[in-house]
């Protein structure tokens, strides 16, 4: 099939950017979206045009590196699918495809479709851990964690930190990302000791990084390639109230 791409091109963080139009010819339905972009880039290089810069790495939907808004939806809007796992068979011959970077003040553009997501690391650094030391730990079975709790923690821990929740959120908020970590550690006994400080520090960091406030649009859950549920935000809110009360 043949497609028309409208791709955001921006030379650097402070340079002006705009949508450029490129043609993608002979696209195979079995190609992944990124492989289609690879081929467009090959064509651009041959023509002496600078190829489109985009983040990608594992190409199997787990590293969280790929980050493109396709036709207005982060990762292209297929259920539980990252851009790298999006395949061209979900497009039709002659389609116009708009490809834009994650947009949020807290994610400044580095180049073209590449953004700086360092602020997500800052949120984790504010408390997304248990303060255990290396070594000197009791046996793994010393703490019993019933299956429902372990499953709940795992549901939250599936977050790949790609930032789609922020890109999709009308408020540019990273609340789903933050809540996934808060909820995972709050439900496990080893995380409970620091739960109050964690929820305060992480939400404080979220604000300081320039992310917006959560106003319950739930667009984050719809954008999330791992289907992280907004129930974790409700859990974060409960944890916050508990912290206030304590």
């Amino acid at each position, binding site marked *: 099939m043949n497609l028309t791409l409208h791709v955001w091109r921006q030379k650097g963080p402070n340079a002006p950017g705009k949508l450029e139009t490129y043609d993608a010819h002979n696209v195979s339905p079995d190609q992944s979206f990124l492989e289609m972009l690879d081929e467009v880039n090959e064509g651009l290089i041959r023509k002496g045009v600078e190829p489109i810069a985009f983040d990608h790495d594992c*190409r199997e939907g787990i590293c969280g590196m790929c980050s493109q808004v396709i036709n207005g939806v982060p990762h292209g809007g297929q259920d539980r699918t990252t851009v790298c796992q999006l395949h061209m068979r979900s497009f039709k011959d002659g389609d116009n495809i708009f490809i834009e970077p994650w947009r949020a003040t807290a994610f400044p553009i580095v180049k073209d479709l590449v953004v700086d997501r360092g602020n997500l690391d800052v949120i984790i650094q*504010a408390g997304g851990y248990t303060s255990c030391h290396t070594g000197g730990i009791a046996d793994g079975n010393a703490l019993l964690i019933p299956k429902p709790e372990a499953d709940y923690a795992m549901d939250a821990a599936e977050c790949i930190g790609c930032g789609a929740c922020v890109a999709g959120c009308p408020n540019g908020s990273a609340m789903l990302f933050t809540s996934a970590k808060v909820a995972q550690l709050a439900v496990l006994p080893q995380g409970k000791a620091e739960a109050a400080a964690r929820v305060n520090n992480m939400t404080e960091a979220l604000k300081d990084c320039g992310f917006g406030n959560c106003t319950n649009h739930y667009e984050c859950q719809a954008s999330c390639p791992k289907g992280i549920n907004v129930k974790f935000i409700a859990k974060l809110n409960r944890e916050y109230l508990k912290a206030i009360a304590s």
Partner: protein
Amino acid sequence: MILDGKCPTGPIEKTWDKHRFDLKLVNPANKRKYKVIVVGTGLAGGAAAASLGELGYQVEAFCYQDSPRRAHSIAAQGGRNAAKNYPNDGDSIYRLFYDTIKGGDFRAREADVWRLAQVSNNIIDQCVAQGVPFARDYAGYLDNRSFGGAQVSRTFYARGQTGQQLLLGAYSALARQIKAGTVKMFPRTEMLDLIVVDGEAKGITIRDLVTGEVRAHVADAVVLCTGGYVNVFYLSTNAMGCSVTAAWKAHKKGAFFANPCYTQIHPTCIPQSGDHQSKLTLMSESLRNDGRCWAPKKQGDNRKPGDIPEEDRDYYLERKYPSFGNLAPRDIASRAAKEQCDDNRGVGPGGRGVYLDFAASIKRLGEHTIRERYGNLFEMYEKITDENAYKQPMRIYPAPHYSMGGLWVDYNCMSNIPGLFVLGEANFSVHGANRLGASALMQGLADGYFVIPYTIGGYLAQTKPGAVSVDHAECKRSVEEVNGNIKKLFSIKGKKTVSELYRALGKVMWENVGMARSDASLKTALKEIPKLRDEFWNNVNVSGEGGDFNQQLENAGRLADFLEFAELLSKDALHREESCGGHFRVEHQMPDGEAQRDDVNFCYAAAWESKGVGNEPELHKEPLKFENVHLAIRSYK
């Protein structure tokens, strides 16, 4: 030169404890005077940086991704071994040690493997304390499952994302140290040279991938945790950014490269769908429990799988290995699939694939049971291929997955360059010629959490902190060299793109140095690789400018290193006139197709010393002694 791994002697059970006691210590007040560079933030690097930072060293950590959380350890699916013996099924440290030595086809050091088995239990405890949500039973106890190469259930797992969860655990420990100020993190940086001063590793030269700046960082020791090199085959299950570059730069500065020919080809991956393919996706090996491998009997049979009657199907694994059937070991299964396709009986695009058929199991157990066991894998398969594996057989094909070889290290995980430590997949130490499932995660974390924190002290205690500054002539020379290299890449302005040449290298490597290697094929590769390298340096087109975010330049640099490394890998494969584990020489096989080792002549680790590009590398041997496990034919029959 005969290399010495400096393994402790005496009863194997006491080696690590004794060695820990013998190691020199750095007193707590002095630790903060020492600076350590950690390159790579996967399981090994993340764990090492966090643990060293916590001990009080000043740590600088580097990764090429935009966050330390994205290292490719994250993609590991199955699980992680530990000899906890929770299921009470007869496991022990000794048994894990034994299984790993045997699984590695008797090509690993006993003492290293013992240590790995011993600390495996601590790692589980550590990860649990970090909040890793391992699978549990309803009573709250940790759950185990079985994995290949072992008869006990010792694999701990977190759904199909064990690697992700372990990495996020290490990442959270690292985040805590970054916050505490003990670790300084440099994401989006790539190591492009090792700085060696008076024979000791004292720093690295990196390129900032955002600004393009090339600069030197100095330290009192350098720890490389930069993963494996199977992207030399172009298509592999590795991430796009995985490369040999950091290890190769260290090799060119004097570090020995050991056993590069030991590469693992995983039998169950989704086949290539066309020339556009950029990477291959692994499907868990567990599928072979319920799937039957077959290929059409007739050559070039283009019928749909459902239209091929039973009598025209060749269930080749069941035919060739009646006792093991579809559960034949990884290397055997991989080679058998290749044979079918080489015989023009492969299926799917390009005829590079065989069927993995669940029809019989679905009939026997019902679709529901199969869905329960493998639902997520079937879903992933459908996403990529648009085929419903409940209705028609899966197509699978082997793909490069892991590299057992790596930089040579002694028992302390220190290379032959003092001050240069190498951890995880980047070193060669514990997997011998073949790695067992669920052992890679174990090794990365063992090295990072429980080995390097002790052994680095032994080295640092004997060095003066802060001996070298960035103004040192070696640093300047290194930065100039890296800049010169970048300039050279831009100046070629040839006709071929980086990925065209990369695909060409991958084709040469896969066809000649892949699953089955012969004297002739290796010699062909050794002729083709230098030609490609010449073409690269004369005809590659790297667009853009240096002082910028430039992915073409990154890829070109990585390919340049692969083009040199590929030659060493092929040479090592040519020199090793035996078959063992992942290294299969067609000249050396048993009548039944099993690998035929030559313990008289090749029971050693081959460590290669660089003598410059295009020159013959020098081989150093480290003899392997087996005092606890007897050398035997590796058989799972």
